[in-house]
């Protein structure tokens, strides 16, 4: 907070990023949702819009016309940019000289993610631990991540599906960003508290801001505290150990009856990273491309090994997803795999609520 500053309008930050040569990905309203898309015009920010997110439903509505960032998380997370759904890994060519392999061009210019919410920043950090710093790092992910500048918008409003406070990932990010903005209330003239979290972030802000007052800082904390206090969903605290002790509870069958096995939750989840590897070849058979594509533990063939699939029932697939996300992720990566963004709740076509399911399961006797 030492370098905190204030700003009347968020658009100069966007303009400064564009001027500094960054490709900017920012919130843009499209097809009834606020998505993260390339933004060339600072005026394209969806001012005055809010999202009503409930189990199985997402609607955009008019909010306070003076406010810029009262909507929360988009349908897609930033993994669509850092870990795209379909990415060529290499091309092999067969010729008289034998086989040769080539990696595709990186195709990634320095990019600014404008409007990353604290839960999504936490998700990026979880994916970093696996895809950038883990034992099986993905060079393409690492390259994109190292060339991504992150502008966080601290959340002054929670949707009904948000539960970041109980996952300790929001609604205020303490670190990990290059720039963070908090939209203050009417009493502070809708100004923004601006924090630089890195040298790169500070360079972008040079000359844009004035010094923040103590009142600005207090107003920023009040805004995010209010967003936390308004959250109605709370993940049970001991869920990691608790689920493990209830693997045969009949409630798993109950949720399986409602689950469509459609994989939407895993695709929308900002930390799910499972992928498949597919080869395509041309008609001559001399040219082969290898692709990485998003996969899901809900897909029937995901657990296919010689002789058949391991998880054939809907129950076993839902249990695998939920226990991995909330429990065995701790064993594997030292933390929960959930950041409380609520996407899996809103974007489940039948509105299955991971928090409610966790509460129901935790109320059952241990195995």
């Amino acid at each position, binding site marked *: 907070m030492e370098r905190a500053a204030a700003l009347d309008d968020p658009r100069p930050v966007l303009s400064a990023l564009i001027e500094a040569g960054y490709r900017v990905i920012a919130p843009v309203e499209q*097809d009834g949702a606020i998505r993260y898309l390339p933004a060339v015009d600072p005026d394209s920010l969806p001012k005055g819009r809010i999202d009503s997110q409930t189990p199985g439903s997402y609607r955009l509505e008019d909010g306070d016309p003076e406010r810029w960032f009262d909507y929360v998380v988009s*349908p*897609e997370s930033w993994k669509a940019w850092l870990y795209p*759904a379909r990415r060529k890994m290499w091309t092999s060519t067969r010729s008289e000289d034998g086989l040769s392999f080539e990696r595709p061009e990186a195709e990634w210019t320095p990019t600014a993610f404008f409007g990353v919410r604290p839960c999504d920043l936490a998700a990026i950090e979880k994916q970093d631990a696996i895809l950038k710093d883990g034992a099986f790092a993905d060079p393409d992910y690492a390259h994109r991540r190292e060339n991504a500048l992150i502008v966080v918008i601290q959340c002054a409003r929670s949707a009904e599906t948000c539960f970041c406070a109980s996952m300790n990932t929001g609604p205020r990010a303490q670190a990990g960003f290059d720039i963070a903005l908090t939209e203050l209330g009417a009493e502070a003239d809708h100004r923004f508290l601006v924090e630089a979290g890195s040298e790169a972030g500070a360079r972008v802000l040079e000359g844009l801001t004035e010094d923040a007052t103590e009142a600005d800082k207090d107003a920023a904390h009040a805004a995010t505290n209010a967003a936390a206090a308004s959250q109605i969903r709370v993940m049970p605290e001991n869920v990691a150990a608790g689920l493990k002790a209830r693997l045969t509870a009949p409630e798993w069958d109950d949720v399986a009856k409602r689950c*469509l096995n*459609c994989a939407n939750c895993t695709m929308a989840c900002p930390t799910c990273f499972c992928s498949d590897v597919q080869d*395509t070849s041309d*008609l001559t058979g001399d040219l082969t491309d290898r692709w990485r594509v*998003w996969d899901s533990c809900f897909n029937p063939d995901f657990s296919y090994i010689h002789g058949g699939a391991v998880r054939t029932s809907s129950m076993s697939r839902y249990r695998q997803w939920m226990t991995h996300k909330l429990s065995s992720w701790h064993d594997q990566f030292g933390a929960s795999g959930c950041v409380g963004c609520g996407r899996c709740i809103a974007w489940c*076509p039948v509105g299955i609520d991971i928090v409610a399911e966790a509460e129901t399961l935790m109320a059952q006797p241990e195995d």
Partner: protein
Amino acid sequence: MDKLRVGVWKFASCDGCQLSLLDCEDELLAIADSVHIAHFLEATSRIEGGPYDIGFVEGSVTTEHDAQRIQDIRAETKVLVTIGACATTGGIQALRNYADHGEWMREVYAHPEYIQALDTSSPIADHVKVDLEVHGCPVNKNQLIELITATIAARKPNIPNMAQCVECKRAGTTCVMVSKGIPCLGPVTRAGCGNLCPSMGRGCYGCFGPLKGGNTEALMAEFAALGVAEADSQHLFRGFTAAAPEFERAGGLK
């Protein structure tokens, strides 16, 4: 290696799937160059006899004559691939399986006595062993190309076995059911179309047929919650793949 001998046959259908093959345009010349087309009436009047390495069959069986013809084709074909909703499920014409066929003929034709047709429209797999099914109404040309290139390279083709939702999410299409309340068959329908309808803002109508193990019951409960009447909900399943067992049940036809 000798070129693969390929045959393409039509049964009761609209020809749309054969057209998807001809629609390969950029790849068509290369395909024609890499395989030997021995029988493909829609493309060439040159007809050669079997045996065939790969046979593509479009359409459903709706006459006694076709029921015999598919036996003959099977006997001469090493790998038999059915293409499209008609060949794999019976197609839209299978709706007659649940109606009075004779009455329909009298309604439609001035001289129904000239029509020699079975009471039912049935998928090819009800009559002969099918080695691979390519779904869709029509089939996706990229799946056909994938099938041909995979066969040439002797590898397993990448034909997705997952819900249409996965295609929507991979493409960044915002879910029409969650964001607009539009009933969509995507969660219980096999992927592969290339995300056509939802990317145009409408619900999937299931032309690629049911995903194995899809939960139609839970989806219909959600349609009811969206305010869709049960009869309208059933009608959604009575389309191009109405006779596929999962949709037949959901559509209230069985």
